Every structure is written in structure tokens, then in C-alpha cells.
């Protein structure tokens, strides 16, 4: 028998639960099923097989793309979190008044569509873009720089900019939660600002750092708009390949196998990061 409280709880979450089941679990099961089938030109062969996975894990093109995706998103995550930390720190420790205004300003980029922001970077980094024109105008370069756009660096830059607010907020919250008397106690016990930061502030902010890392890492591995728009050919990532398999290449089963393989990899990496963070952050309750 369900107690009143439990029934009430279930009733509360059931719309969301239903929605997630329909929108998340169902497609996932479909993709999983697809990945064990085979595409024969126009019809699907529903005999179960591991061929798709064999192809996904053996052909160099796919592993290259996966490694590149991992590399790009790890760099994006590192850049984003490292840049977000000082901003969050400043907000938490040095802004005394108008904290709300600052938080509000951080969300300003969300006022325009993500696509527009990616295009903005194209305008800035392009052959006749803002940066090249400015450098030429200043006489620093003669010919426009071509290494700015359509490569992995452009993808890193664009993604890092886009995900910065998501990284700032969890770190900010973690820093806000640190009891300031702990910092005074560390100072009282002889620590200077630097030692204190590494012994108290950073370990206690670790849950926020881990959250930021995962929030940025997981979606950027699977991003396909940014690489498509600013990545050029050597900036393509695994999600672009998955998109191609489901679309132009008309090989949904292979696309599904690729999608599930990258999902598995992302999940394992996330688990490792989570455990590492827990270990470093220690026994924080």
C-alpha cells in the first residue's frame, strides 16, 4: 500500500515522469534497438547483429572523430571552468552590493539565440571579419589571417564563450555556501591567502567545479551546430558524423551505434570526474 505522502509525491512528479519517459526513454530504446539492426538500402533488416558496433569501434574515421570530440570538449571545459572560476570568485567574495545585477548581466548572452552567437563569432573571426580588418587597419598584418576560422580552435573559442554562464553559476553557488569564518580560521592558524585558497576555498568549492565541468563537458562532446558552422573540415566532431549517418548516408543503425558508443564514453568520463571531485573535495557534507 502507498502511504498518503508517497502517493502525493508520485502524483507531483508523474507529469514530468511521463514526459521524460516519452521523450527520453522511448527514443533511447528506439536508438538502442536500431543499433542492432542493419540498413539494406531502403529497408531495415531486423536481424539482431553487432556489426554496427564492430564498424563503429574499428574504422579509424570514427575513433578519430570521437577522440577529436573528446579533445575539443575537454579543452573547452578546461578553458571555460578556468575562466569561470575567477569570475565566480570575484562575484562571491568581492561584489558586496548589487550581486543580483551582476548575475543578471551574466545571463545577458542568453537573450539572443545560440545560432546568432555562433554567427557572431563568424563575423569576428572571418576572412574579412572584425579581427582581421582591425589588425590590417593597425598595420600589424598585411594579409588576413586564415587560421582564425574553420578549425578546431574556432570551435573551442565559440563553445567556451557560449557555455561560460553555465560554468560560472554552479561555482558561484558553491563559493557562496562557504562559511566565511572558515577562511578567517585558516588565516588565524597561520595560512596566507594562497595556502588558504588551496586548503579551504578550492576543496570546498569542488562540488561546484565538478558540476560546472560536467555541465560543460557532456553537452559539448555532442555538439554539432558549432563545429558545422565554424569548424571547417578538421573541426568536425562525432555528432556531425552521427547526423550524417541518420541523414545523407541513410544508415540509421550505424548512426545509432555511434551515438550509443559516444554516450557510453561520455558517461564513463563523467563518472571518473565525479569520483575524482569527490575524492579531492573530500568528506564535505
Amino acid at each position, binding site marked *: 500500500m502507498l502511504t498518503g505522502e508517497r502517493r502525493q509525491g508520485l502524483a507531483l512528479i508523474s507529469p514530468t515522469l511521463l514526459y521524460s519517459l516519452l521523450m527520453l526513454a522511448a527514443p533511447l530504446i528506439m536508438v538502442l534497438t536500431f543499433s542492432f539492426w542493419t540498413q539494406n538500402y531502403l529497408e531495415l533488416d531486423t536481424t539482431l547483429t553487432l556489426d554496427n558496433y564492430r564498424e563503429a569501434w574499428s574504422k579509424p574515421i570514427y575513433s578519430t572523430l570521437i577522440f577529436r570530440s573528446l579533445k575539443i570538449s575537454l579543452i573547452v571545459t578546461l578553458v571555460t571552468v578556468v575562466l569561470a572560476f575567477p569570475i565566480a570568485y570575484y562575484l562571491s567574495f568581492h561584489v558586496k552590493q548589487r550581486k543580483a545585477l551582476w548575475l543578471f548581466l551574466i545571463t545577458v548572452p542568453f537573450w539572443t539565440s545560440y545560432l546568432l552567437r555562433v554567427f557572431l563569432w563568424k563575423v569576428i573571426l572571418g576572412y574579412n571579419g572584425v579581427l582581421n580588418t582591425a589588425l590590417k587597419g593597425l598595420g600589424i598584418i598585411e594579409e588576413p589571417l586564415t587560421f582564425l576560422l574553420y578549425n578546431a580552435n574556432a570551435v573551442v573559442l565559440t563553445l567556451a564563450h557560449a557555455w561560460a554562464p553555465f560554468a560560472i553559476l554552479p561555482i558561484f553557488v558553491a563559493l557562496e555556501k562557504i562559511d566565511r569564518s*572558515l577562511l*578567517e580560521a585558516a*588565516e*588565524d*592558524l597561520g595560512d*596566507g591567502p594562497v595556502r588558504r585558497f588551496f586548503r579551504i576555498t578550492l576543496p570546498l568549492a569542488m562540488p561546484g567545479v565538478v558540476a560546472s565541468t560536467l555541465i560543460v563537458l557532456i553537452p559539448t562532446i555532442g555538439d554539432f551546430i558549432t563545429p558545422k558552422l565554424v569548424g571547417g573540415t578538421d573541426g568536425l566532431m562525432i555528432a556531425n558524423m552521427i547526423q550524417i549517418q541518420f541523414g545523407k548516408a541513410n544508415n540509421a543503425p550505424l548512426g545509432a551505434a555511434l551515438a550509443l558508443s559516444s554516450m557510453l564514453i561520455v558517461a564513463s568520463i563523467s563518472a571518473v570526474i565525479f569520483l575524482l571531485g569527490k575524492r579531492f573535495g573530500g568528506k564535505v557534507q
Partner: protein
Amino acid sequence: MTSPLPKPIIDLKGITKSFGTFQALKGIDATINEGEFFSLLGPSGCGKTTLLRMIAGFEMPSSGTIMIGGKNMAGVPANRRPTNMVFQSYAIFPHLTVAENVGYGLKTRKLPKAEIAREVEQALNMVDLGGLGARAAHELSGGQRQRVALARALVMKPKVVLLDEPLSALDKKLRDQMQVELRQLQQKLGITFILVTHDQEEALTMSDRIAVMFEGRIAQLATPEQLYRRPVDRRVASFIGVMNFLDARATGPINGHLALDIPALGSIALPSAQIPEGLDPGRLNSIGIRPEMLTILFDGNEHAEQVARGEVTGTAYYGDMTYYSVRLPGHAEDVTISMRNTAGRSIVPAGSTVPVGWGADSIVLFQ
């Protein structure tokens, strides 16, 4: 006092502190001696915590100098001062074990691991937490957290231990027990303790000397006994314990005595030794008497220097004591009289008229 010639360890001269337009401290002068248990006592907002934080190095005075052990502390940050603090919230590092908390400062001093372990164990034994070093911070009770905070400060062997309302978060029973333990520990170690508290009982039971603070100034700096028996003004008198205030005026000096007229009690001559320095008899307007200095005379055998009459309006029974509210003639407010419930002494019911005994030496003069 422990030594006949007290040696100053902290010297505060002309300390002021302003936060914007608010003046938290308006000129503090005080000397705190080596091995002394010194309390800063006052209501919230009187500046006592600010003063303590200045000694610790978390705040800098707007003007004035702080000397610790003969050295001027101007510009010396908290991490280079020979003081250690027990925070009101205890500030136990949540991500470290008890032993790591206590050894935190020793690690900063780069002591060898074995020595840190030994010192930590010693400090934990001192506060009765021996063997709990491996506990995580969140597994501790309130009283244990307080002991860890204390051990963490003591293990540094500071010249001065600063305690910011360390007992305020504990329940009454534990608080009473910790008062005794803290005092014993301080006397055993001979380290100077400076305690900030708003609890007058705490200050009285633990301290060698107390500075009573109001609105950024020290109103009185004295031993607990002096504070209780000879408060300098009505504010100090009513902050420390219970005090009955009665209107009074001086009617003139009579051969080395001060003649007083107290409408509610009667007339009396005070020996001049009891007149505080700087008191102008012409401006004298009231006297104070503690509840235990007034006695209800239960039968004719009991003797008092002076006797007035009053009517009991209410009683409060405390087990060992009974507190009586007594109306005295010509006095609007009832006075409080506390009587010990000794054998054979019954409680006088409200409405009875009783003789009230009082004496000259229990009278405190106010202007």
C-alpha cells in the same frame, strides 16, 4: 591574581573603529595581563566582538595602537599574530577530520608529521577528545565541535587565546560544565584568555577581570566582585545581575559620613569610604541595593542594621531561593528581595506586610 606583579601582554591605546558613519568603537584603553582570564562583556552591538577581531587581526583600528607582547600590531595580518581564536560558529573545517582540523596550523608551520600527530593527540586529550582524531567533522556534536575548536587554538601554543562567545550555542547544562572546564584549563596552562560574551553570569564565573562595554566604550573595567558590588553607574549595575534602584538624595556631610535620605527605606549615614571617587553628592539622585542585600525579617530574633516595612506583592519559588516582589512606601516600582530557603523558613504569602532589613554597606550610590 596569580602573580603579585602583573605583566602586561596586550596593550590597547585609544582604539577607535568606524564602519562608514557608524562608530563601533569610540576610544578603548585597556591593558590585559599575562595569564589573565579577561572578558569583554556587553550587549550586542557594543563593539566587543569588533575589539576581539582587531586583536586577532581581522579588523584594523581606525586609530589607536594594539601592542601584543610589546610589539605593535599595526599592519600585522592575522596569520602572523601570536593569537588564536575560537570562533562563535567554531569554524570547523568540514572537509577535514578532527585530527586534520587540530593539526591544521601545525602543518602550516611545516612541523614533521610525527610531531604533528603527537601534539594533536595531546591537545585532544587536553579537551577530553582523546581517540576521536579520525572522526569526520560532521560526526561531531555541538559540544565536541567546541572542544575541537579549542584544541585547534591551544595546539598552536599562542600567547593569547581569543574566544568569541564560545558557549552561546550550547545548552545550559553543557554551558555550565564548559565554563568550569575552560577556567580550569586556562589556569592550568597559564595562557591569557580573552572572552567575548553577552552573558554576565559567564563573565562573572570565569574571569579575573571584566571590561563592561556599552556603545563602543568601556563603562567599567574591574574584577567580578568589584563589578557586582560597586558598579560605576546604573547601566553597569542593571547589566550585571539584578539591582533595585531607589530614589535618594544627600542631605549633607555629618562628621566624615554622608547623610542620605532614601524615601522608600529611611535615612542613613554612609561612611565616606563608600563614596566613589568623583561622585558629587549634590548630583546624587539614586541608590542601588542587590536583592540579596535586602532581607525579610521572619521573626524577632533576626537582626538588621535598619528596618523598613513593605508589602509582599508576589513570590517566585526557585527551589533553593525565593524571590519576593515587595512594595515599599512611596516607591512606584516593587523591589526584588531574594531569600535563601533555609530549614524552617516558610514562604511569606503575597499580601503580607513584612519588616525589610537593610544596611549601609550594601548601598551603591549613583548620580
